[in-house]
């Protein structure tokens, strides 16, 4: 079985990618960068999400941010059409 850390990390990366694509208009072509959380488009999108949701804008996937992203919500995007 993969180490817990790795699978959890993998899961949260998928969650973040899906969340940013669905709610923050993260363009799908950014995919190659996604493996590196520190790629600037992704960081910018994480910061945009944290700002909108009233979280501390760190650009990092801290536990507060992940916690809010796991919460039930409306399916309508937060930005864009």
């Amino acid at each position, binding site marked *: 079985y993969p180490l817990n850390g790795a699978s959890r990390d993998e899961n949260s990366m998928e969650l973040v990618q899906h969340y940013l694509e669905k709610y923050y208009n993260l363009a799908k072509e950014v995919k190659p960068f996604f493996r590196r959380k520190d790629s600037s488009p992704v960081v910018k999108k994480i910061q945009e999400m944290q700002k909108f949701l009233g979280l501390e804008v760190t650009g990092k996937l801290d536990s507060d941010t992940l916690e809010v992203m796991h919460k*039930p*919500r409306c*399916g309508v995007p937060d930005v864009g059409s």
Partner: protein
Amino acid sequence: FTTFPGMPKWRKTHLTYRIVNYTLDLPRDAVDSAIEKALKVWEEVTPLTFSKIYEGEADIMIAFAVGYHGDFNAFDGPGKVLAHAYPPGLGLYGDAHFDDDEQWTKDTAGTNLFLVAAHELGHSLGLSHSANTEALMYPVYNPFTDLARFRLSQDDVNGIQSLYGPPSASPDEPVVPTESVPPETPAMCDPTLSFDAVSTLRGEFLFFKDRHFWRKSLRILEPEFHLISSFWPSLPSGVDAAYEDTSKDIVFIFKRNQFWAIRGNEVQAGYPRGIQTLGFPSTVKKIDAAVFDKQKKKTYFFVEDKYWRFDEKKQSMDPGFPRQIVEDFPGVDSKVDAVFEAFGFFYFFSGSSQLEYDPNARKVTHILKSNSWLNC
């Protein structure tokens, strides 16, 4: 708050909605009232009014679905996405979909349907999400919302009023209302409660007040509370009088010098008509109350301290009227707000009091509170 790109909004203030299907998590009437309550949240701060239709295409189609449900926006099982809705427009636009993989509840033990519906209907009216964590339009569901004291945040009100403006008096009401505008929905058990009009309807009792009415069945303890417009969209609010002609299965509703005929949910074609068509002189500007006497097939119309008698068979006013109310209804000596007939008695409503009148004994047999029928 934010609106959708291009700021789509409805170009009319009276909208229709239809609940296309129901979740099995709740009784149907609980779903009906959750949706009605959610619409009322927006109705109270805008000029918008809503009426429910039961078939065909409504402006706002409300549906429960799981997984893929035909709009390229599949639901995702329990949790995560609870529901979504589309901004104002034709077809799919304006519609609201609820994920039936959630456990919909009246409280917050599961996902509260009223709360999510109020949010989604905000989208159906043109609001997008708000970054204000206190706002109803904040995207993340808050299970700790105090439902008993739920109110829109100022951010929500600012947002919806940026699209539709504040509530306006309806065109046929004076800009500065002559009577005090009710601060909020009337309290059913307020001991000072008075009614605009009362009527029977197919064995039930309707108590009209401002924009709403209570519907009381003798078989069910608790009365229902509805917007008049949710049953009869073309009827005005603040009606003056109402009576049921049981021989025709029609309820006649009066406001100022006009009257409407309704059969069940349907307003009959050819109405409103002028009250002068019933034979009233032009000096009569409005009716205070009306009641149909099914024994005699006559209808009594009460106007200030006098009353007229209308022969429903001949369809004309009886000669020798108007007469003084108190002469023919001893003990009924104050202005009549409303009246209906039940169990062989006439119930006259005047302010917060109700007189039970026995037409055979020709006397008042009981004095009650006006809201005594509402199980207070």
